[in-house]
């Protein structure tokens, strides 16, 4: 039975998840018509209805019906609706459903259990908790991706604190929290642990601001905890033995991922924890765990499906000649193992221990393992089922050829540089890329760092791997042309957008003229995320993209000669985007002001590095995003919001 909430003073025709279609949700507080092309049927629907307590959707005047009343036909309809909408899980479907009419809006809000917020500043916690009252799972994303590369001041924001306070009151039955690029403090974690008695899953990706003391709170208080995943987060060492804080009784722990936690742990406590967690399937150890210790854990948990192997080297105090455990058997016993990672400080001699599991592996992450092609070959030769592979370029083109020869099911490949600077040697090149394109026809996602590339290889990949969804090529030397022909890399990227019909994410590099962008604008109709660095000649480049890519949601640009005119050409589209980032381009504060004035629902943040005095008129960093709340109040001094 749908229980009517007390009437609100205004509608929320807003959608924290802003749909990707060309529509603008705005609070109906505004009687102004929405900008240009976004008049929708829903807006007209909402403008007709006044505050209502019933589910009726006819456009009559304000209702004077008392709040609680006997069920009537529309109420029944709402009950039915509630039962039906429960089955809708996709948030896009739910967003669509919520726009049908007032009744559907309300019922959808009551039945939504998973909340996804792509930008924590797009709306306030209060707004979210007011609309959605029965949430069990929240996904929250904060800083823009370029924060990972130190382009954002550390005090910029994305604080979890206001969210956890609001949720502590509104969602006491919260079970799952997934945060990405948020600043989370130990206090936040303590509040979380105290407030949600049924809490089950905590996933922190690229977060910072907390330490092992925060983890200790979670470990000790969250008795129903099943998942504790810390992925690429910065965790400070408060010298707290958090592993010992888990309850002594048998645990329902299913996943424990802490490979990014760079502090030593109490291994004996960990071993006991693993022993009393029969449901444990995923375990990723940090590099303080030696291979000998790994062995002990594997023996305790042969049921693991995902294993992060820690350092994969013997501890310092193992004497030579001492009997080493049988690593091969330990791996052989893990019959369910499908995902292997770790190898943080690998001694390559031990790598053959993983032979028994290779044939079953679907995911292998060797991206911290400095191994060469020769060492890779015997491993990869057996990995017929491999779908995801992350490696270092230390394997060279030959290593990639070996991958191409065996891994016919490969969906995702990432090749990271062992020496991430512009003038390093670059052991992988177009040769490796070409080989992969020929061998791994099912490739959907690639991230490839290199120093040398040719258009021909990129074109080949565009033809050989038509299923590509993500294509990210990083030629590390800036402005590097095709090293064989000397030409810009325009044609290569052009071919990618032309031939890969499912492409949604693209990162470009190398020497690129406006022509490359004209290709992207012309053919990149499905592109949602675009990353640009050190590319383009003029404003036209950016214009092509803003005018040509209707699905564009996230655009991040650095060090490219795009100015105010280009920025203004995107006015029609910015409300449909999650954000735009532009740093070290040719924007002036005047241009940014213009945008801010034209689009009141856009928050336009300008960050100027104080050090740069003779920047002249140019804006150092622009970060803008749509928001229902207007300028935030937690911005540091370096950020000015126009």
């Amino acid at each position: 039975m749908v229980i009517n909430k007390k009437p609100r003073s205004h509608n929320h025709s807003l959608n924290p998840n802003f749909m990707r279609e060309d529509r603008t949700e705005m609070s109906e507080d505004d009687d102004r018509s929405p900008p240009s092309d976004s008049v929708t049927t829903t807006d007209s629907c909402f403008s007709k209805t006044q505050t209502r307590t019933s589910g009726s959707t006819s456009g009559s005047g304000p209702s004077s019906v008392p709040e609680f009343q006997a069920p009537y036909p529309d109420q029944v309809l709402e009950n039915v609706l509630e039962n039906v909408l429960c089955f809708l899980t996709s948030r896009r479907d739910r967003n669509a459903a919520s726009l049908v009419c007032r009744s559907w809006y309300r019922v959808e809000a009551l039945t939504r259990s998973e909340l996804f917020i792509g930008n924590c500043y797009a709306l306030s916690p209060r707004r979210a908790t007011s609309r959605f009252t029965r949430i069990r799972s929240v996904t929250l994303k904060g800083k823009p991706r370029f924060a990972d590369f130190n382009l954002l001041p550390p005090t910029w924001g994305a604080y979890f604190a206001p969210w956890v306070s609001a949720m502590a009151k509104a969602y006491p039955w919260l079970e799952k929290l997934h945060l990405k690029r948020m600043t989370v403090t130990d206090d936040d974690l303590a509040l979380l642990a105290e407030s949600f008695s049924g809490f089950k899953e905590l996933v922190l990706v690229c977060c910072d601001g907390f330490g092992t003391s925060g983890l200790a709170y979670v470990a000790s208080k969250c008795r129903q905890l099943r998942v504790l995943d810390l992925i690429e987060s910065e965790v400070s060492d408060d010298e707290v033995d958090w592993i010992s804080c888990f309850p002594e009784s048998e645990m329902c722990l299913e996943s424990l991922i802490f490979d990014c936690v760079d502090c030593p742990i109490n291994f004996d406590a960990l071993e006991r924890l693993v022993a009393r967690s029969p449901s444990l399937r995923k375990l990723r150890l940090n590099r303080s765990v030696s291979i000998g210790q790994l062995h002990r854990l594997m023996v305790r948990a042969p049921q693991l499906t995902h294993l992060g192997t820690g350092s994969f080297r013997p501890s310092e105090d193992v004497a030579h000649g001492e009997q080493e455990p049988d690593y091969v058997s330990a791996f052989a016993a893990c019959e369910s193992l499908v995902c292997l990672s770790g190898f943080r400080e690998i001694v390559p001699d031990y790598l053959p221990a993983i032979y028994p599991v290779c044939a079953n592996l679907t995911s292998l992450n060797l991206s911290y393992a400095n191994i060469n092609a020769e060492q890779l070959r015997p491993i990869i030769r057996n990995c017929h089922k491999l779908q995801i592979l992350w490696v270092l370029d230390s394997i060279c083109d030959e290593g990639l050829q070996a991958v191409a020869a065996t891994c016919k099911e490969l969906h995702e490949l990432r090749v990271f540089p062992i020496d991430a600077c512009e003038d390093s040697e670059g052991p992988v090149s177009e040769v490796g890329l070409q080989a992969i394109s020929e061998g791994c026809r099912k490739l959907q996602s690639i991230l490839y760092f290199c120093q040398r590339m040719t258009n021909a290889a990129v074109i080949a990949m565009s033809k050989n791997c038509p299923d590509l969804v993500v294509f990210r090529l990083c030629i590390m030397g800036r402005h590097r042309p095709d090293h064989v022909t000397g030409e810009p890399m325009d044609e290569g990227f052009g071919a990618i957008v032309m031939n890969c019909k499912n492409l949604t994410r693209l990162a470009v590099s190398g020497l690129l003229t406006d022509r490359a962008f004209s290709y992207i604008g012309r053919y990149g109709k499905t592109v949602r995320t675009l990353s640009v660095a050190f590319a383009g000649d003029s404003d036209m480049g950016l214009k092509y993209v803003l005018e040509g890519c209707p699905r564009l949601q996230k655009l991040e640009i650095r060090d490219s000669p795009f100015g105010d005119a280009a920025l203004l050409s995107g006015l029609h589209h910015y409300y449909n985007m999650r954000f735009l980032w532009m740093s070290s381009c040719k924007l002036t504060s005047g241009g940014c002001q213009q945008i801010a004035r034209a689009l009141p629902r856009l928050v336009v943040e300008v960050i100027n590095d104080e050090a740069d005095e003779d920047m002249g008129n140019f804006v150092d960093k622009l970060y803008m995003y749509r928001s229902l709340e207007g300028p935030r109040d937690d911005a540091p001094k370096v950020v000015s919001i126009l």
Partner: protein
Amino acid sequence: MAFQRDGDLNLEATELRLGPPGTTEEPEKQTHPTTTAKCNKRSLPDMNEESAGSRTNNSNVSNEKKHDRTSPPTKAQVVGWPPIRSYRKNCLQAKKMEAEAAGSGIYVKVSMDGAPYLRKIDLKVYKDYPELLKALEDMFKFKVGEYSEREGYNGSEFAPTYEDKDGDWMLVGDVPWDMFMNSCKRLRIMKGSEARGLSCAV
């Protein structure tokens, strides 16, 4: 196949310089709006940039350190480029520096004429030539004779040689130990007439 290390380096095409795109000798049509001082400034490993725009974490600091180690640096490092997460950069950076500093070993193969197997040794284990030679003698059961600069190894039919970075075969002992450690790619203990030839060739 493997990329060519030697041969056509085509340095000019890949030469990196400070400056806006296209201002190289390459015949590209690049129309250049006048670049502001900002573009150049961004390329400098300015201390100001570090404190203002970035966390004071290892990544930039280690970039600086790395900078010092490469000699000579052809290009200044830019903030946040290449786009690798600090965490990953630090991990690998740390490993490299550890390897350089603490010494993860310089492993070279050693072959001896007439012996059916190769051996591998860690040059870092030895602190000078006598130690190395003694180890080789023990390993292969032979005697190496007296070394003199003019005459090479006298009194033995064996001569220890090594291939250096340029691909040349040199007599072990001719260059200072440190230089040897840095340039030695592999060792070969020559026997018989070849060995004698070497000792006179100096």
